[in-house]
């Protein structure tokens, strides 16, 4: 047992850190660190920089652009990326549809889609959730009927993140209505330009436009857009949901936020002293840091354990990462709100363009404090709510 990084691991950390902080424009990274929305162009630009380096899809098979990194290296890559404010490669492409196609797709599908997904030539979005289904994903009702060489899709998806930017969508459809819940579901790819697809924005409480409803009205796509076997789409979904559980804790993101909070708390003054000298505030900050340090160690323990595990069969302990990681991320938003104080109150509309037209009303960072607090409540809801995570741990680890 040696709880220190090896010199090789240290060197790797330095390498990725250097790259992230020099190759990716600071303007993009600053926006990420301040919790501002990025434009489509910024996300694409950043991912292409990584892809050029060969680092957009390290988790993919090597033949499709992946790396042979150890789990510790993957961890260091994510940690440094998050700390530097480098936008993560678009998850729908790199952690979801990409690995699914690489695992279950035909050779033709691989050739057609993988390189484009890695380079964000195609922007993918995820057609899983439906109104009324929520955590009970398998109760989905969007159906695809086989008609000749095509699928005809009807139904509705919701919470579809950034569908407004998307070129393609991967959709879970019910293809056998008489089979039991998880059986009779298929995983189908649709070009967003296909007639019959309509995207309606959902405005979130922070005033942002991140998610959408996607309607399918007699949408016809080629039969060959099916990934894997007909009626076995649940296997793809499970595989997809099981991937990349360690990044979920976003330890690096929380690290960067806590550092930023500490910096700002040195600048903000309460009476005649900096906020950081307020005993209560300092102890609250320290308490979150301690939880985060513990989570980082927990993550490393899980990472170390990954070597022996099968791909797509995550360590159920990774539910801890989701549970604690979400709570810690949310705690950082509460601290930031406190730092901003009264200046968290003005609402400044942000647009999709390059920054804001109007100047803000207080310090720059303050405008994002409340929207981020509001928006990040989603973290304990999406991707399997924290209640679902507790059910998983209760069953898979505690044996209830």
């Amino acid at each position, binding site marked *: 047992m040696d709880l220190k990084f090896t010199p090789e691991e240290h060197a790797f950390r330095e390498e990725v850190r250097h790259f992230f902080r020099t190759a990716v424009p600071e303007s993009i990274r600053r926006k990420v660190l301040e919790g501002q929305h990025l434009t489509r162009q910024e996300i694409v630009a950043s991912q292409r920089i990584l892809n050029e380096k060969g680092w957009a899809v390290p988790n993919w098979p090597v033949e499709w652009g992946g790396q042979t990194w150890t789990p510790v290296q993957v961890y260091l890559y994510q940690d440094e990326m998050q700390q530097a404010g480098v936008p993560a490669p678009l998850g729908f492409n790199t952690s979801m549809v990409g690995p699914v196609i690489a695992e279950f797709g035909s050779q033709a599908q691989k050739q057609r889609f993988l390189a484009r997904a890695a380079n964000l030539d195609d922007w993918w979005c995820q057609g899983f*959730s439906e109104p*009324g289904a*929520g*955590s*009970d994903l398998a*109760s989905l009702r969007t159906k695809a009927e086989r008609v000749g060489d095509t699928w005809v899709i009807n139904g509705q998806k*919701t*919470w579809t993140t950034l569908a407004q930017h998307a070129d393609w969508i991967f959709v879970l459809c019910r293809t056998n209505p008489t089979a039991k819940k998880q059986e009779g579901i298929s995983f189908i790819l649709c070009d967003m330009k296909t007639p019959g697809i309509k995207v309606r924005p*959902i*405005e*979130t*409480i922070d*005033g942002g436009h991140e998610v959408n409803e996607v309607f399918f009205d007699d949408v016809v796509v080629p039969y060959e857009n099916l990934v894997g076997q007909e009626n076995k789409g649940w296997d793809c979904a499970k595989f997809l949901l099981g991937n990349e559980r360690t990044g979920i804790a976003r330890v690096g993101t929380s690290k960067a936020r806590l550092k930023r909070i500490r910096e700002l708390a040195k600048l903000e*003054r*309460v*009476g*005649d002293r900096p906020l950081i000298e307020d005993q*209560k*505030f300092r102890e609250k900050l320290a308490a979150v840091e301690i939880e985060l340090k513990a989570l980082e160690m927990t993550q490393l323990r899980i990472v170390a354990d990954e070597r022996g595990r099968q791909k797509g069969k995550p360590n159920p302990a990774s539910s801890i990462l989701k549970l604690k990681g979400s709570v810690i991320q949310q705690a950082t938003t509460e601290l930031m*709100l*406190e730092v901003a*104080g*009264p*200046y*968290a*109150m*003005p*609402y*400044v509309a942000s647009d999709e363009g390059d920054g804001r037209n109007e100047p803000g*009303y*207080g310090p720059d960072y303050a405008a994002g404090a*409340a*929207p981020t*607090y*509001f*928006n990040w*409540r*989603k973290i*304990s*809801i*999406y991707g399997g*709510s*924290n*209640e679902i995570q*507790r059910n998983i741990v209760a069953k898979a680890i505690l044996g209830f």
Partner: protein
Amino acid sequence: MDFDFSDDQRLLKDSVDRLIADRYDFEQRKKYANEPDGWSRDMWARYAELGLLGLPFPEAAGGFGGGPVETMTVMEAFGRGLVLEPYFATVTLGGGLLRHAGSERQQAALLPQVAAGELKLAFAHVERQSRYDLQDVGVTATRDGAGWLLNGEKSVVLHGDSADKLLVTARTGGSRRDPGGIGVFLVDATAGGVSRRGYPTQDGLRGAEVSFANARAEDVLGDPGGALPAVQRVADEAIAALCAEAVGGMAAMHALTVDYMKTRKQFGRAIGEFQVLQHRAVDNFVALEQARSMAMYATMMAASDDAAERRQAVSAAKVQIGRSGRHIGQEAVQLHGGIAMTMEYKVGHYFKRMTMIEMLFGDTDQHLAVVAGGGGLF
């Protein structure tokens, strides 16, 4: 000790509750928010008609002589309705300053206009550096003949954009954080040297940044260097009112959540059948009732002339409201799931309003420090 309403109080409660039920559902509220001021002039007229805009004013000044219980009743209903109009800014803050710092002449001149719905007020006290400290005042007021000239900037002036007149704390002497040397000045919002930038606040209400460049005050309320005690008293009354508003909002959020749990189905049954969610709803209920209790306590103590005792009680209530409000708000969102994250659903708006209330007139930690600095609540 009597928790029942008097007949008059019952009448008031029924009429305000009915008004909110009839005219302030979520769709109506959206419409009001889209009006030019960001709130409804029509509703404002109705409040005037019902006597709400003069409720806490002396009868001599065209008011109804209502006390903290009456204010609690109105604010709780307004909390339920997520009311957008500048009632708190005009009646509680502006009216409160006139009541506690203004002369009889000033009250007689202005309060009847407020009660009639003809005069909207706003209280400009926050500054860039002051955070929640009422005595941290950098805006200056200097003598100019018989009058005063104001210079400096005020931040996050609630409903400052639509106010007709501003009540502004300004320094006539002492250094930036001295308790002495602070006056409350009455300034016409359209006077020369006053400029305002209005904006929506995170909860869908309105605020403004206001700057003064040799702006001439119309008048000063009471002692130009000794207004702080009155300002603190108004702040205490305001906090009691906010506590009541918050209880209205929390109760509505809690009720929405329980209803949603009974109808929303997951895994083949209503999510309200899951024991773990039931217990969390119970914890919300307990948090709500504790908050309601403390809002009543603050109401009871808000009229106290003993400033130290009043402050302890009001701060204790603000802490409870802050904690319960945050807990219930976060849990309401979590128990609803994604739907609560959308603008189209009401719960998120309550959540946002609770968040802003926690930040008004001092946050939870600041008030906890006040209670901790006292000699104990018992």
